[in-house]
């Protein structure tokens, strides 16, 4: 039996706290701040990108050479982007066209 050294999952805890903080920040920007709509949208978009980055690095092992064959899962990331594009562009196409 491989007796691994028990270690606290530091990375996960940091990631978890960071994502909570970012979420709270986004909520405050949208509901609590007096910024103009354009700024609110810019800021929460920015926060979303940072949030996604944290998920990928802290939880999804995107840069972890020691994981098996150590490559970035571009394939899945690509499909994720394609799906997102279908949802956004597709909805615009269907809901806006002709109105």
């Amino acid at each position, binding site marked *: 039996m491989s007796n691994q050294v028990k270690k*606290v999952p530091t990375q996960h805890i940091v990631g978890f706290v960071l994502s909570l903080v970012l979420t709270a920040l986004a909520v405050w920007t949208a509901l609590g701040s007096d910024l103009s709509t354009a700024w609110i949208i810019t800021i929460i978009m920015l926060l979303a990108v940072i949030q996604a980055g944290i998920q990928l690095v802290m939880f999804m092992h995107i840069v972890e050479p020691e994981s098996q064959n150590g490559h970035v899962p571009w394939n899945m990331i690509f499909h994720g982007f394609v799906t997102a594009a*279908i949802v956004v562009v597709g*909805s615009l196409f*269907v*809901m806006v066209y*002709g109105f």
Partner: protein
Amino acid sequence: MSLDEFFVTGEPLIYAGMVAIVLVTSAIIFLLTYFKKWGWLWREWLTTVDHKKIGIMYILSALAMLFRGGADALMMRVQLAFPDLNFLNTQHYNEIFTTHGTVMIIFMAMPFLIGLMNIVVPLQIGARDFAFPYVNALSFWSFFFGALLFNISFVIGGSPDAGWTSYTPLAGAAMSPGPGQNFYLLGLQLSGIGTLATGINLMVTILKMRAPGMKLFQMPIFTWSTLVTSFIIIFAFPILTVALALMTIDRIFGSQFFTLTGEGLPMMWANLFWMWGHPEVYIVILPAFGIFSEVIATFAKKQLFGYKAMVWSMILIAALSFLVWVHHFFTMGAGAFVNSVFSVSTMLIAVPTGVKIFNWLGTLYKSKIQFTTPMLWALAFIPSFVIGGVTGVMLGMAAADYQFHNSYFLVAHFHYVLIAGTVFACFAGLEYWYPKMFNHKLNEKFGKLSFWLFVIGFHVTFFPQYFLGLDGMPRRIFDIGPEWFTLNFISTIGAFGMGLGFAVFVFNIYYSYRTSQRETTGDSWDGRTLEWATPTPVPHYNFATQPTIRGLDAFVEMKKHNESTFDESKLEPIHMPNNTGQPFIMMALLFMSSFALVFEWMTLAILFLVGVIVMMVVRSFDEDEGHHVEVEEIKTTERQLRGL
């Protein structure tokens, strides 16, 4: 809130339901106590992480849901048998068609297939469990409690009544006040967690845990269909999650995403719903294709004809399934150009589907067919599904769909694909893999009887509905005009035939348990794939030694070379996960939190949610490393099972 607002009152049928629930629950509690089985239930089932047991629990729950959805269906058919019948009133009818649709798709079809995947996929690829056994248990309990939440709505609080599609603005807070619609939203959300997690789990399992040597294009076709399905799940389910969350926020916290007021966009719900909904119908048909392919290859005693074409057509179907959603609301008014684009993409999907039909026919061609019950389901599937597919293409022509849309023609279409596809496949798969699960076959005589009752009943029920649709009968009406009487009456008779078929099927489970011969080898049907290389009952570690795979139909090769999955010279201790009660407790807490949210009891909901988070923390610092099955134990188990 007074008690008569909490419980549904005033409906004799629902009172009967309550009595039945109380009786059955007391009977179960009594039996468990009387036979001192509580400990057994907890140790062997509620805390298990074994994919085979989890699969069995999925299938049992799905059968219960099939019964519930079937009872809904029979009530609807009774109401529609005669004009002006007052068996169900409008409100009750609305509730029943809503719960029927939701239960059948979300809580019957998907869990049934996921149950079969649970049992079969690790065995087919030579793995000892899922990649994440703990998550697998979590998924099951999330589905189970989601289904429970949705199902109690009919006695507590009142059922949702806006259709399984829950179109806004009807489903919004303004037009559907009260807890009913919340049950739909939170029940689906809760079970959706499990579906998504299972999708990821299956994908990782298939990609990472195959037996040494098994290349992707040497995987059994059911495993391939599972891989493609998990792909669709991973990309489609987040859309549903978001849509459900938005509507929940609308209803409970007063936002305006899908409302008529406050710049809401009710049509956006239909758009998002079908962006998930169309891929969803392929989530429940691709595994069915996989099951039929396995069954046909086994009982035609041939390698599957055009294996590669089969795989590529599934991949193509999966890709296209994300590009056709608008065909569900051609009449919404998006315009001719938009409709034309989606008309074309819809018809394109019929091409890879056609390829698969020809491959099955190619496998059957000039083969020596063995007419077992699973094979009969597969043979009945081919022509029935073609009818469903062809009428689907008719619906896909936008201009014609203005006539067909929301008529019984549509109802007939989707029942032809869903029943002849998915439900036949569930029966076929269960009968085919039954000896692997329970160590004996189902009785062939009763199996065939239930097959004929069900299949004939099915066609008698749904074939007339195409013509009812062409005669202008709309879907979701609770009262038929006299001009639609004859065909509706025939349809109701057929429905009872199907009910009888199901009853015989369930009886057969009991009958076979009492009388069927126990299996002596693990290879019940002279199988071709790896699941048949294990002894039955399958030891909890599945494979004493993993075989090395050299080609397609791995077990055929192994039999030729006289190899087995018990090579004494290669035995090593096997690392297995420990049982745990955490998934059950975590999901039970989430269930209670959701239940409180249904009634908008915020404090209580938050309280239980904190409990869930505590369970997550407990899990995060969990240092359970599992245990090892020692070589001696493997030796004794295998020798005994194999009669060596």
